[in-house]
């Protein structure tokens, strides 16, 4: 189907909206109520465009393209319409920009600067007053005065989460967004509402007033909250991660679950170790590694157990596997049994670990015990020292009902009582690393912030320990780790691991 937009000819599939066709050409038509992942409402009227020959302007979001249509998106009539629609929307909009968290990423501000720039003809004192700062859910604050009634939030709750907590009450200029009686906005995806709200009506209670958005730096990364591995954008400044936002990527919906967004909280949790805690007291991270190595060095190889983890990256698990091989111990486990799958039909995975597929690849090459066999080995009493991730070592020792001295890598504020040595490790926000999600897709986490001084990613720590034991594994740099991954794991032999942009999927 052929049509003309702003005089340029284009070809689209039948059923495409004018807005979609224009966007494909790179012509951005302003929108408030339209969202590509939600149904079309056509109530904000900012996307009005002119069709040559049509008596009136039409909404670009809800009008399908027709053969031979000639659309004008920048004509004088269209620009006047946008200006007037904006003026209508701003009539009752409060002058809250200085205290509004949306300022800087607000649709009203952006389009006002682009299309409006009019002086208000409406006295400030006559603006409609509504309920402000409403506590509507665990993560959200609602300000009804700022709302422009685009109903994106209502449609999100109806169509995406299918929980339907929100509705529009009253009619005309009295209408406002409200919770349905007896409900609260605490579904698993509620923070997406703060994202899709084009104005500052819904704001995040967690991010509220923490940082102005124009100060934030952005790093593209992936979420490690579950096996789905959603694409995220880490928003950070001065080495502090302020929030995680969904990032558009093909094959993923434009959402992010609340749980995933909160994964950055453990980074600056007060209990997270920045120094190594050993039997001898607090040590600098490097000294902690020396302590762990000296304990390992005193033991026979078969007395040492090494525990890989699906919560750690490909690099980390490879280095631990290499360390086990270098020490010469048979007591290592790179196994994790799970049944991944999207449990709620949107994003959340039944498998909470980000890298179980990646661990399975390394397990297939390096072998080692399964979890059950490993538990038996721990219970047998032969093992005298365990090296692994804090949470899992704890669980494994509890399951085997033993308390073996162990050295654990700690990524979060999870307490590690009674361990011989707690080694702080850099998380996926602090070091570049790779995961493989439940669908076999390679996921790249990129370092957004710097780890505390001396705190290394696990692969680097494993390399240091191996060198101190006199059994070097030669994984000093990340390039070396990626080379080793390619060389050792046949599935990844052709993978573009070091190319930061390239996509890869397991067969």
């Amino acid at each position, binding site marked *: 189907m052929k049509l003309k937009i702003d005089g340029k000819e284009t070809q689209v599939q039948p059923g495409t909206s004018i807005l979609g066709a224009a966007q494909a050409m790179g012509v951005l038509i302003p929108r408030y109520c339209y969202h590509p992942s939600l149904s079309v409402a056509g109530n904000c009227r900012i996307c009005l465009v002119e069709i040559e020959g049509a008596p009136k302007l039409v909404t670009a979001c809800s009008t399908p393209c027709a053969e031979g249509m000639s659309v004008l998106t920048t004509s004088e009539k269209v620009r006047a319409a946008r200006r007037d629609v904006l003026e209508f929307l701003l009539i009752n909009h409060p*002058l809250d*920009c*200085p*205290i509004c968290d949306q300022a800087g990423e607000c649709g009203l501000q952006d389009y006002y600067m682009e299309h409006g720039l009019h002086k208000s003809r409406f006295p400030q004192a006559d603006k409609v007053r509504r309920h402000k700062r409403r506590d509507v859910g665990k993560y959200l604050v609602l300000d009804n005065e700022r709302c422009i009634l685009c109903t994106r939030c209502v449609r999100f709750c109806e169509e995406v989460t299918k929980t339907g907590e929100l509705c529009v009450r009253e009619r005309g200029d009295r209408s406002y967004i409200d919770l349905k009686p007896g409900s609260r906005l605490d579904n698993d995806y509620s923070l997406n509402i703060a994202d899709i709200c084009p104005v500052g009506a819904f704001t995040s209670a967690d991010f509220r*007033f923490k940082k*102005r958005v124009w100060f934030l730096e952005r790093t593209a990364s992936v979420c490690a909250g579950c096996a789905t591995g959603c694409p995220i954008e880490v928003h950070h400044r001065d080495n502090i991660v302020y929030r995680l936002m969904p990032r558009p990527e093909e094959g993923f919906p434009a959402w992010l679950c609340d749980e995933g967004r909160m994964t950055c909280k453990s980074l600056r949790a007060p209990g997270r170790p920045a120094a190594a805690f050993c039997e001898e007291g607090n040590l600098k991270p490097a000294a902690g590694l020396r302590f762990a190595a000296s304990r390992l060095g005193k033991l026979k190889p078969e007395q040492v157990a090494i525990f890989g983890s699906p919560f750690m990256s490909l690099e980390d698990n490879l280095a631990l596997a290499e360390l086990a091989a270098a020490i010469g111990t048979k007591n290592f486990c790179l196994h994790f049994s799970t049944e991944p799958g999207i449990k709620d039909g949107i994003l959340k995975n039944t498998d909470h670990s980000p890298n179980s597929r990646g661990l399975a690849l390394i397990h297939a090459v390096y072998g080692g015990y399964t979890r059950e066999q490993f538990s038996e080995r721990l219970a047998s009493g032969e093992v005298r020292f365990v090296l692994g991730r804090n949470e899992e070592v704890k669980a494994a020792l509890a399951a085997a009902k033993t308390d073996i001295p162990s050295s654990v890598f700690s990524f979060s504020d999870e307490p590690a009582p009674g361990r011989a040595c707690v080694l702080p490790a850099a998380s996926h926000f602090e070091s570049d690393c790779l995961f493989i999600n439940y669908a076999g897709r390679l996921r790249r986490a990129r370092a957004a912030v710097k780890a505390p001084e001396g705190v290394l990613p696990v692969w680097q720590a494993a390399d240091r320990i191996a060198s101190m034991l006199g059994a070097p594994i030669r994984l000093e740099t990340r390039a070396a780790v990626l080379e080793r991954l390619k060389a050792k794991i046949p599935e990844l032999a052709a993978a573009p691991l070091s190319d930061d942009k390239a996509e890869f999927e397991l067969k």
Partner: protein
Amino acid sequence: MVARMIKTKKVDNRPLTLLERLYFTEIAAGMLVTLKHFFRNLFKPSNIVTVNYPEDRIPLPGNARLRTRHRLKLRADGTPKCVACYMCQTACPAYCIDITAGEYSDGNPVEKYPVGFDIDLSRCVMCGMCVEACPEDAIAMDTGEIPGGALTRDEMFMTKRDLLRNLPGEPSLLGASNRLHNEWDGTRVKKK
């Protein structure tokens, strides 16, 4: 047509006279000037033209139009007018403003206030961009104090406590958030 005004000063380049070349007469004349000031200051100290800066300062004339040390204005109930919007911090070319925002917990509809508001005057270039940028009329540079002449860097570091101050005739009622606050404050007073 604007008339050009060029001031010239004629320099007397004549050769020195014999008396001047003798040196001692000139020394004595110079010493006389010094001694004149010395005795005048000794017997009538109120006539001294210099002050012991920075301990003593000459007050600026009342009609002085210049940017002086910052202050943060207050509302009628003593809360800062500032709503921690970060406009001044964004506009500041010297990066000398550092704000920490917080949230009112007492139902104040303004919601936001500065928990901390620091200005490092040793970095400040006194450009006045912060005053221009402020949407709430909360920051002003009209205290009449010229910063500088401090003995330590810490003295030049202004915190919120140092900055909060109203001049006579205030508080002013400008600013959208201030209007919100004043309405709320009114209802609160009535309830009392």
